[in-house]
């Protein structure tokens, strides 16, 4: 193939997340979320100029991220921001239900999009202790959740999470409504190092939409610990365009974090 722009998987994840962001939304980006932060900035620079995002830990509203700092708690993340607010104020907006979109991940992600950041195995005596839930419980107070991870493997993509840090579609159809949540809110997109998925409207189960270039269905199945539904026509994920890649590398991530991680 000629002139296929070379991109990295984190860049592909960021571009895919960005394309799903809608103009006018308010989003929050949390800890350890390079791809999400860069996606927000990219969306603003392309199709969503009225989209607003908050860089969670440092409370920066619409920072310009040139360059992306080494950590999402880094004070340099406030460069070019329009406001810097406290964590408590960010949390006010989250709890009050004013946030449209939250980016999230987990040490376990299940077929209904529930997320776990706490433990693998029994909670009382875990085989593996994760860092903790941080802001994931706020997922029940936001409208949409985009899940992303660079670790698409059967240990992360499990049939049922061992601990719910962030609610997804719980046990399937009707379960969000029973928990006092809106049935149609919640996780709507999953972007990994292998594929792009969404959730089937009726069964609320995770559904394959597109495979990244070069990824086979067999390898996706092998790396997913539950049976994925398939969209009617499974496509190949559209790689970053030259313009998207240029914006990321020259206007946002000028230190190339997405090329290193």
């Amino acid at each position: 193939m000629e002139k296929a722009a070379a991109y990295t998987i984190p860049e592909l994840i960021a571009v895919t997340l960005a394309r799903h962001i809608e103009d006018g939304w308010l989003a929050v980006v949390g800890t350890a979320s390079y791809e999400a932060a860069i996606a927000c900035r990219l969306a603003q620079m392309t199709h969503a100029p009225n989209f607003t995002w908050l860089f969670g830990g440092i409370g920066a509203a619409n920072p310009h991220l040139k360059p992306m700092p080494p950590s999402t708690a880094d004070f340099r993340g406030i460069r070019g921001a329009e406001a810097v607010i406290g964590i408590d104020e960010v949390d006010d907006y989250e709890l009050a239900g004013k946030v449209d979109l939250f980016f999230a991940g987990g040490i376990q992600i299940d077929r209904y999009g529930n997320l776990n950041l706490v433990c693998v195995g029994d909670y009382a005596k875990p085989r593996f202790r994760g860092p903790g839930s941080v802001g994931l419980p706020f997922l029940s107070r936001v409208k949409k959740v985009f899940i992303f991870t660079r670790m698409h493997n059967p240990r992360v993509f499990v049939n049922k999470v061992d601990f719910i840090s962030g609610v997804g579609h719980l046990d399937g159809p009707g379960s969000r409504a029973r928990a006092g949540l809106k049935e149609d809110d919640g996780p709507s997109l999953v972007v990994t190092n292998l594929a792009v998925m969404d959730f089937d409207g009726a069964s609320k189960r995770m559904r394959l939409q597109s495979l990244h270039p070069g990824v086979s269905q067999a390898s996706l199945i092998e790396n997913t610990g539950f049976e994925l539904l398939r969209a009617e026509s499974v496509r190949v994920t559209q790689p970053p365009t030259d313009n998207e890649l240029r914006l990321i590398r020259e206007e946002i991530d000028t230190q190339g974090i997405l090329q290193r991680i």
Partner: protein
Amino acid sequence: MDRERGPPCFFSFFIFHFSFCILHWSSLIVAERKEKLLSVEQAVALIASGSSVALGGLGLYGAPMGVAREIVRQGKKELSLILSPGAGLQADLLIGAGCAREVLCSYIGFEDLGLAPAFRRAVESAKIEVFDADEAYVVFGLKAGAAGSPFFPLAEGMEGFDGARLNPKYFRVQDPRTGKSHLCVPAINPDVTVIHAGQCDPYGNVRHLGSRFTDCLMAKAARRRVIVSCDELISLEATQQEPQLTSVPGFIVDAVVHLPYGCHPTCSPSLYERDEEHLRAYLKQSATEEGFRRYLEEFVLRLNFPQYIERVGRGKISGLPAQGIDHGKSGSLHDS
């Protein structure tokens, strides 16, 4: 201060002194405003074993590391730690050193550098009681604590989080007006709050040179003591020139510890970077209990604060100036 000259005779002295007492009694009593400067050893001596201690900073940024190491050195035990929604080395060190009986936390880790090794070991071997909270618990619990309220009722839907079921500190309250039941978090009132900031004056007026994280809330919610360590000690006059920059007012601060590089190896926003080499070496070494013990011996137990800075290399830290935000006001740190 003006001193009265000696009186010509006893009688006139008596009269004079008597009137002086009446007229100037109050000015004699409050002759001098008290500075709050303490050494790190004196400040940590204010923390009793068994008390609840809130530690400020977020992740590997603005963590009060100098004070945390001194807590280990003084052998404090049975502490109940209250952590910001993102705690790293400050928590891992205290937990691994056996200073904590329990921990209220929503995230303990090294973010992009990895998981917290001592915390993981302590939980996986059931050596510590963990109250798995979420960011909302910590933040709204502190808000309630700061306002003197007993608890904070959370908005609907937060009960989906398993911690709300497994952490016994969450509870439910019925609203008598609507009959609806609400998930609540109890007020958080740490006995002692410890934070670090870029600048502070001798009376405890604090300036953060970056984001404030939960530092201000933790200070407001403290029941007994607020300890602030700072990289740069500024004058009261400097505070007064731009009082709008004060992030924590001095009247709620009890102790000011001038501790240049007091965040090392974490970052002090706008002043110096996190020392990734040191942090990565810690993570590698602390992958085993023995390695962690060696780190404690080498960098904590044997060294007081100046010795620690000497050991890790003052030149090396000051060679890690944080590029990016120019506050235009700091600068004394790297000059001295």
